[in-house]
């Protein structure tokens, strides 16, 4: 058929989110063990497609990330369960290795660690490093890999299986990973099982030409995996893989890590802020006071009666921020309720900052 492909899988193993996903109150509850059995069937199918296909599985755990399995990993013969007449041995070896490592990692989680933010960025960047090693990297230094046919290693892709909501603090690292994926021509597919829309992963899939699928029936995930994510990117044009409808190009601001749709951008370093600030926190550039006044006055849906020639920027910002954010966001994005709450609280907290930088 065509060239072998490499599949890197980034698996979100957040215990909290999986617990929530398994709650019987959900319309279609799915437990981690059910999901893993689906995933293993999919991974077996990937290996079965072509003999040279390779695989790497990375787990994102609270506070850290780990490699769970790779095709090049040495196999420990003793740990494998005795052969089973009903299963193909290489699949059996792979499945038991993956399950064992996942169990080990979850066992190793302490009580305190489960609350830490998920190490998704680490897992994604490790997947990128591994692909770099498999495709280009190995060819340039080690002489052993130079003999391999470089064409045989092409077509790498990453499948992200996500159950956690976006962490806005990881905006910059995620974007950096996306751009390096573009550079290495890696396709990023996203399979969202639980946890709401992810703005960053939507952008990741859009920018790298992958597909972002928010799964309606998580208990039937194997169907989605097989139909949408099994064909390598080269074949995707021929098969009509579901595409994204709307792509949200919002970004996270640098000051409060809010996800914003209208931001204030420093012309020197392009840092994004959710409200006009007198000094850029990234490059320490001071902005002209006139601009601040103008921007404060022209903030979207500024409260009527706010004087345009406000004495200080602080005065203008105080009434405007909590009042305006609510109607604006709801009109654009009705389901983004959490954003309103955070915007409001930030707006209320802002005056001291402005006072410091005020023209005195």
């Amino acid at each position: 058929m065509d060239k072998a492909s490499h599949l890197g899988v980034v698996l979100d193993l957040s215990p909290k989110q999986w617990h929530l996903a398994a709650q019987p109150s959900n319309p279609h509850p799915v437990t981690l063990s059910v999901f893993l059995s689906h995933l293993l069937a999919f991974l077996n199918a990937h290996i079965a497609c072509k003999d040279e296909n390779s695989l790497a599985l990375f787990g994102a755990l609270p506070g850290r990330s780990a490699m769970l399995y790779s095709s090049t990993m040495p196999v420990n013969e003793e740990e494998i369960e005795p052969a089973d007449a009903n299963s193909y041995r290489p699949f059996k070896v792979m499945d038991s290795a993956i399950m064992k490592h996942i169990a080990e990692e979850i066992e190793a989680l302490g009580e305190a660690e489960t609350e830490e933010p998920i190490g998704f960025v680490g897992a994604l960047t490790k997947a990128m490093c591994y692909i770099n090693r498999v495709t280009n990297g190995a060819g340039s230094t080690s002489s052993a890999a130079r003999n391999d046919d470089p064409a045989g290693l092409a077509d790498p892709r990453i499948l992200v299986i996500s159950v956690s909501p976006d962490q806005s603090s990881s905006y910059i690292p995620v974007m950096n990973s996306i751009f390096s994926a573009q550079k290495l021509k890696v396709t990023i597919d996203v399979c969202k099982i639980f946890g709401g829309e992810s703005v960053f992963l939507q952008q990741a899939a859009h920018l790298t030409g992958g597909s972002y699928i928010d799964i309606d029936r998580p208990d039937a995930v194997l169907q989605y995996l097989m139909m949408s994510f099994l064909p390598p990117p080269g074949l995707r044009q021929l098969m009509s893989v579901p595409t994204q409808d709307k792509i949200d190009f919002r970004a996270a601001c640098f000051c409060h890590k809010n996800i914003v749709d209208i931001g204030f951008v420093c012309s020197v370093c392009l840092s994004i802020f959710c409200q006009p600030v007198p000094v850029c926190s990234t490059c320490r550039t001071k902005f002209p006071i006139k601009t601040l006044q103008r921007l404060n006055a022209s903030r979207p849906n500024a409260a009527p009666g706010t004087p345009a020639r406000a004495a200080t920027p602080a005065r203008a910002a105080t009434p405007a921020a909590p009042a305006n954010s609510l109607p604006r966001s709801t009109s654009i994005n009705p389901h983004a309720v959490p954003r309103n709450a955070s915007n409001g609280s930030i707006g209320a907290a802002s005056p001291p900052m402005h006072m410091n930088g005020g023209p005195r």
Partner: protein
Amino acid sequence: MPPRRMNDDYMGGGSDSDVSMLDEDEHTSRGKAKGKGKAVEGRKGDKGKSKAKEQPYAWEASYTRSWDTVQEDEAGSIQTAVQDLIARGRRRRLLAPGEAVRRTIIRHLILVLDLSASMMDRDMRPTRFDLMLQYAREFIAEWFDQNPLGQIGMVGMRGGIGERIGEMSGNPQDVLRSISERHKLEPAGEPSLQNAIEMARSSMSHLPTNSSREITIIFGSLTTCDPGNIHDTLDECVKDKIRISMVALAAEMKICRELCVKTGGQFGVALNEGHFKDLLFELIPPPAQRAVARANGPGAANPAADLMMMGFPTRLPVTSHPSLCVCHGELKTEGFLCPRCLAKVCDVPTDCDICGLMIVSSPHLARSYHHLFPVKPYQPIATLDGTPNPSPTCHACSVPFQEKASQPNAPLADGVSPLGRYRCPDCKNDFCTECDVFIHDVLHCCPGCGK
């Protein structure tokens, strides 16, 4: 002499970057000594002369004889030494910028191409002209990749006048299309630096003060045929804060160097094809901005800096209901929604036609963030004595580290770890050479700390 031969293979058969590693040294010395030989001859002559242990040319003095530094290992092989050299060359690039510097991000560049008769010389294969076109295309693609908010215009020098080849545009496709038709650019006549610079200058005169203005000239001639005094043009450029950078294909000319030095640009003479590309591509990363604000005292605001309001749109898919766009009034399904007034525009970045909000796609901005938050340089690990439980594998790609040092008693030079281990100062994880380079060059994000 086996090591010698092997090393020649390494130099000859190596990639461009290997060659450039050596050429850079040679090139920096060129600034003082103006001996210009053809690249290939230069190197051959160099090797021949070095045997006789005499240095008839000044430029040979600083030329490092890399084959003298190669040492055989215990097994009599130089494989490790060669790998060491490669690793050293890659690391060298990483050692330079560790701190955040202020860089210009919204760039405006006029690329001036020499289309004079001298570009038909065949000293670079196939001709200087064809090579220039090919590299110019690669340059434009890479430039837009690293400067997504920048704009490029094209000017040609032909028949004693400056010719506008392409208007200033932020779309790489438009710029590439302007130089796609080779027959329209057929070289002829004399070049005129003054005319071309004046034309470039006039097309950038309207730009706002917070953007950078640059001219990059690819110059293949040894003459320029100007209508007036080019030094006046130079003074005007200095006044307008236009940076002129130049890559010469023939030899250094006084006026060329002066143009670059006085305006704060870079000047280089290409030795061979690979070096030409390296010189041109050095101009791609955003230049560090000169500290203007500092001169006015710490309290003074930088007049060039400003806060801009920008909107991040929502993209509508092909499958959505068709509606009229506000920019052309055409019925379209695809488009971007202005976040403030929900008007539909066809393409970003643009200004909303209804409410005037600047609409950019956030990935455009995010592309330059790695300049703001660079990954800290990793520390090379010389010994494992201080580490209680050294990790057996690279933290990023899980490849096992080598057990013993490649050259056990070699000193820790050039920041190369004999163990092939590099440790992040923040998360204290160890990375292999391969990942170290990849993380700092491409990924810009440490897998250990997730930053």
